[in-house]
């Protein structure tokens, strides 16, 4: 085991994937000499050459669209979208082409493309640099959507995403890039749990708290605080938000009978809505109270000085836990 930041773990994952398979090519803006604006591709161009670590023109649709052609020629492109809010110009290529070509061609054309997106807020960035676009991609059949929360998962799951024959939207919470954790560099990615299996990040008995990405850290902090007050929260890190591992969620809900789902993205038609609808269908008889959503507001991402009002923090999550426990709290009597 080695201690490293999530950014470094991602860098190591890319290096390993490129070493394992010479068809893996990286594409993106500023990923060469600069190593990406977050340095995730640091030193890779020196090591693998400009033919495999390709600095592209500043055109997101072009980056994804040419990756489609490279994939058709037998390559495994890993593209970096510089910031979450910049993925929208590539939206057509992602949802109409990348997601559908396998289906369209009855499986004759594979799209092993990984689209890495430095994702979500909390770093005091400018407008369009803190978006949470995951629901658009979760809603699109043909894509897998992965959201990592720690260096170990980042290391293993990025390699799994690249090795996967389906296209993967790979979300990297940018406020965790500098967070350190233990990473096992010696175990091959095929020997760890497959991409798409949720993780019980903290066991508990009273409330199931489901989340993903950077919110896992906040959820764990909330669980720690709740434990001090005698409430046992089970935290589930989804890791994959398409498909979602309902077996792990169901087992937890049938144990606790109470559910809170939290994410930073806005609430309307978000991942929490999907998770709760599915839990309600699958575990209705086990539920003690109505499931609770604690999410970002249904607003455009606010200016950075206000982002703390948007991203659910520990206290808002605990407020939701209180509601799930049927306790009187700030929201009692407030119409949702």
């Amino acid at each position, binding site marked *: 085991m080695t201690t490293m930041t999530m950014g470094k773990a991602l860098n190591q994952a890319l290096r390993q994937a490129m070493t394992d398979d010479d068809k893996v090519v990286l594409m993106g803006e500023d990923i060469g000499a600069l190593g990406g604006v977050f340095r995730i591709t640091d030193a890779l161009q020196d090591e693998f050459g400009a033919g495999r670590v390709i600095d592209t023109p500043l*055109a997101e649709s072009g980056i994804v*669209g040419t990756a489609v052609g490279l994939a*058709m020629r*037998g390559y495994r492109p890993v593209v970096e979208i510089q910031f979450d809010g910049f993925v929208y110009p590539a939206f057509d290529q992602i949802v109409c082409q990348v997601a559908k070509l396998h289906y369209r*061609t009855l499986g004759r054309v594979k799209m092993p493309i990984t689209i890495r997106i430095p994702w979500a807020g909390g770093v005091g960035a400018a407008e369009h640099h803190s978006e949470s676009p995951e629901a658009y991609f979760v809603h699109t059949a043909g894509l897998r959507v992965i959201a990592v929360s720690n260096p170990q998962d980042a290391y293993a799951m990025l390699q799994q995403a690249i090795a996967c024959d389906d296209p993967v939207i790979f979300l990297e919470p940018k406020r965790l890039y500098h967070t350190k954790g233990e990473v096992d560099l010696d175990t091959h990615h095929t020997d760890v749990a497959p991409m*798409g299996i949720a993780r019980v990040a903290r066991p508990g008995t009273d409330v199931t708290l489901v989340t993903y990405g950077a919110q896992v850290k906040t959820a764990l902090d909330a669980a720690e605080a709740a434990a001090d007050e005698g409430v046992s929260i089970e935290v589930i890190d989804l890791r994959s938000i*398409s498909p979602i591992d309902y077996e792990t969620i169901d087992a937890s809900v049938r144990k606790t009978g109470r559910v809170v789902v939290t994410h930073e993205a806005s609430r309307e038609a978000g991942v929490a809505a999907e998770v709760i609808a599915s839990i309600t269908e699958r575990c209705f008889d086990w539920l003690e109270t109505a499931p609770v959503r604690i999410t970002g507001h249904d607003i455009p991402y606010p200016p950075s000085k206000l982002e703390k009002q948007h991203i659910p923090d520990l206290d808002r999550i605990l407020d939701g836990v209180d509601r799930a426990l049927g306790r009187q709290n700030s929201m009692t009597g407030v119409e949702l």
Partner: protein
Amino acid sequence: MDISQVLTPDGVRVQNVELDTYLASVTADDVLSLYRDMAVVRRIDKEGFSLQRQGQLGLWAPCLGQEAAQIGTARALRATDFVFPSYRETGVIYVRGAENRDFVGTWRGETNSTYDPYRINTATMQIIIGAQTLHAVGYAMGITADGADDVAVAYFGDGASSQGDVNEAMVFASSFKAPVVFVCQNNQWAISEPVSVQSEFPIAGRAPGFGIPSMRVDGNDVLACLAAMRWATEHARNGHGPAFIEAVTYRMGPHTTSDDPTRYRDEEELETWRRRDPLDRVEKYLRAEGVLTDDVAADIAAEADRVGTAVREAALTMPNRAPLEVFDHAYATPHTGIEAERRAYAAYLAQFEGGAS
């Protein structure tokens, strides 16, 4: 910009310094072979139109009038080159080796792509306007990385030239010197919008701004199209990067069978272009050369009829896919979400006679 031509609408072979270099080896028999393809494709197109009108196809996008642009350019390619067509390239996929059912399966709604792209090195038809141009450039970048000397070809229309993707494709192609040929069939109309809405300036004139050499040819002149494509592929194959062809032609029918062109264009314009029919001029030329006799013409007509009938037969005998196949191939690897949906739908179907089979 001039429109290069080697065969006038009256079927007279004229000299063209630029294009003749690429036609030195072309015999009258070669021209006859091009004519044969054009005649067959016109017949397939007519059959597709009829099948739609008879309710056998949901839609058809006619290529009537564009046979020269499609056959001329496609015949300049190698089997190992890779083509990225739009949805109107019936002539192109015919040259690439499409089978009878491949012309109709998609329009009938049975599959989104009837053929295996790798069997005929041709991507499935693209409906999103211009999206395939980027795929062609990416594929061409892969050709370069492989050290091969194939080319990728993107077919698109005048309307597509306005799309961001087409412009991004030219930026990428130029920056990476990708061996890609852009073939813009300027058929004058993007559904109801005349080309002047897309561009007041000749479309071929834009490419040099991206550093891409271009040529504007008479798209109803099959020899000019063949020569231009030979020029463009030679350029790309030899490591000089992308090339661009604007084939100036005319879509004589509607945009699709759902369209009514009488609402937006007049009979006079149509008549002007009828006089430039791509088949007529080749026929006149070949008759003058003595290569196209009544017997040969009858033989070609019979072949066209045979293919047309076979395409009809393929449409009418196409098997309906089993209900649960609706889930097939959404993912390449097992996906728990879709597998659960498949199980649930199978259980639902099982309650009916015949079940899911």
